[in-house]
């Protein structure tokens, strides 16, 4: 049995992956709060615009202040990921450069500058621009952040579901053949909707929790109650939307990354009418013996539900890990190649790339061989079937963590909405709910980060699905140098996080600034 977490080999691949994971995970602490608070402050300011009540302006300004702190601390933390591409993942970076160039440039030029321009109007313009212009600036700041997320997710979705490209053996890179296919890939659309709605959920949890803290302290009850109404409404909508988009994600993953779905479900052997696992004894720290076990021990499952999720058919066929390795016929009746066949095609593509530049007049034929087999290029590097199976235990449990917490948040926001609209939520008898809201803050981030980890760990070993495994994508560096920057980042990001939490807590304790009269 291979202990995945307990025996991390000190290799360049492992350290490069660890460093990228650390940077991405920390970056993702800031981004969803920015996206989520953008909606909360936008709604609060819209109410101020419509009612003209200054107390609503105070509420909007308070959430904008917390948004600003998070925006300032989080901004540019994602740039480090791009540095890592060029240094640690140079082969990968070269392969995808033509595809990623356009989305990342648009993200930098349009979205980031839009966000930065309007954020200045939002903070400096309260007394200098009209109410309507200020409101538009507030929403455009949030829209800028959301558009920024769109282009980043387009790049991420392409790695998971490469589309709209062709491989050029002359330049040794994927070249974009259709910008529309890349930018509007169904995988990107779904990923964007799921990511953004789950980010709104984080903003909503934060808003409700901070407001509940005021209720616990017996302060700012008016602002707290109205903020809870906004937060819980956004939260319930976001939780339901994340659930719906998550359902579509499962469908997309089943069609494009069946091995990820099999790992998420610890489905060793598939078939028709597959059930969805609620619980099973899967060790999160060790790769199970999927080749000889029928299914995980102590499995409790909902009949047929996995088939419904994966195929939208009660009796649909869902392949397990062993089926994917041995080859299978999918739900549409199409035969999917076995691992051995994919390896063969991958080797053909690699051979053709190796020979291409020395083939003279046969090069066009070789180019065609590359084009015909490049879909499985990465399999040519696979020497052992186990290397194509992602860590099952971690993926299985992280998926359950995400779905379990998502379900919890749906119930949580439903209860909060009921209490805040039907009862007096500031009463002492609802102290349990105030405390629960505070506990929910870390849970919201655990839920969101778990989702990302399922998406990324579940697609291992691929940096580009089926085309480039991690051990080929990585640069030939010394592990020690990556190790040093890993700990440097750990220190840098932990400091940034501590600074953010400290400034946020200080401003929350200070509370909103109150206007003297409540009308304009």
């Amino acid at each position, binding site marked *: 049995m291979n202990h995945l977490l307990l025996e991390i080999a000190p290799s360049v691949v492992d350290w490069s992956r660890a460093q990228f994971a650390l940077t991405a995970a920390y970056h993702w602490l800031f981004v969803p709060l920015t996206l989520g608070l953008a909606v909360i402050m936008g709604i609060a300011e819209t109410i101020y615009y419509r009612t003209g009540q200054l107390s609503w302006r105070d509420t909007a300004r308070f959430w904008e*202040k917390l948004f*600003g*702190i998070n925006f*300032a*601390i989080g901004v*540019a*933390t994602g*740039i*480090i990921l791009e*540095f*890592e591409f*060029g*240094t*640690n993942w*140079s*082969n990968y*970076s*070269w*392969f995808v450069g033509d595809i990623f160039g356009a989305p990342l440039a648009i993200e930098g030029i349009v979205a980031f500058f839009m966000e930065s321009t309007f954020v*200045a109007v939002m*903070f*400096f*313009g309260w007394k*200098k621009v009209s109410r309507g212009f200020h409101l538009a600036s507030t929403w455009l700041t949030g829209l800028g952040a959301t558009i920024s997320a769109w282009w980043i997710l387009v790049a991420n979705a392409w790695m998971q579901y490469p589309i709209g490209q062709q491989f050029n053996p*002359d*330049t*040794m*890179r994927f070249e974009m053949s259709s910008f529309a296919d890349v930018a509007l890939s169904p995988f990107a659309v779904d990923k964007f909707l799921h990511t953004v709605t789950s980010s709104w959920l984080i903003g909503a949890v934060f808003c409700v929790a901070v407001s509940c803290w005021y209720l616990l302290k017996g302060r700012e009850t008016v602002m707290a109650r109205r903020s809870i109404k906004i937060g819980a409404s956004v939260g319930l909508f976001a939780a339901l939307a994340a659930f719906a988009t998550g359902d579509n994600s499962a469908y997309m993953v089943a069609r494009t990354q069946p091995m990820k779905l099999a790992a998420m479900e610890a489905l060793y052997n598939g078939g028709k009418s597959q059930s969805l696992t609620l619980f099973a004894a899967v060790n999160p720290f060790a790769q199970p013996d999927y080749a000889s076990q029928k299914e995980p021990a102590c499995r409790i499952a909902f009949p047929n539900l996995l088939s419904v999720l994966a195929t939208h058919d009660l009796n649909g066929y869902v392949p397990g890990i062993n089926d994917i390795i041995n080859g299978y016929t999918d739900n549409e009746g199409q035969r999917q190649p076995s691992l051995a066949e994919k390896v063969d095609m991958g*080797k*053909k593509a*690699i*051979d*053709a*790339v*190796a*020979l291409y*530049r*020395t*083939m003279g007049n*046969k090069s066009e*034929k*070789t180019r065609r*061989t590359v084009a015909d087999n490049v879909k499985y290029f990465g399999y*040519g*590097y696979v*020497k052992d079937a186990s290397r194509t199976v992602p860590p099952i235990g971690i993926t299985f449990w992280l998926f359950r963590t995400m779905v379990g917490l998502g379900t919890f948040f749906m119930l949580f926001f439903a209860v909060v909405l009921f209490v805040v609209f039907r009862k007096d939520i500031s009463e002492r008898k609802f102290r349990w709910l105030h405390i629960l809201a505070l506990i929910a803050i870390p849970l919201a981030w655990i839920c969101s980060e778990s989702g990302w980890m399922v998406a990324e760990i579940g697609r291992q070993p691929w940096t580009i699905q089926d085309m480039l495994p991690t*051990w*080929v994508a990585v*640069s*030939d*560096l010394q592990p020690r*140098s990556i190790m*040093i*920057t890993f700990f*440097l980042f750990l220190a*840098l990001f932990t400091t*940034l996080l501590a*600074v953010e939490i400290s*400034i946020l807590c200080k*401003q929350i304790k200070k509370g909103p600034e109150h206007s003297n009269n409540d009308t304009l």
Partner: protein
Amino acid sequence: MELRRTITGIVNFYVDGFRHMTWGRTLWIVILVKLVIIFVLLRIFFFPNYIATHRGTMRKSDFVRKQVLKEAPPPQRTPGLGQ
């Protein structure tokens, strides 16, 4: 004249905004320190462009080809490809 007034107005908007900042000053200090660390310290000393610094006189595409094929198993001489 109109353009000049507009530009002056925009500049004054930002100058006034920065001058009257209170809690925002701390954030700007954090942002500037962070940007210096990221773009000066990390970019220059820890994150050189690997291909640019290792390719020597080779074309970038040839360097990547060499790197990528280094990891490949021995060629299987696919029928029909020649050699």
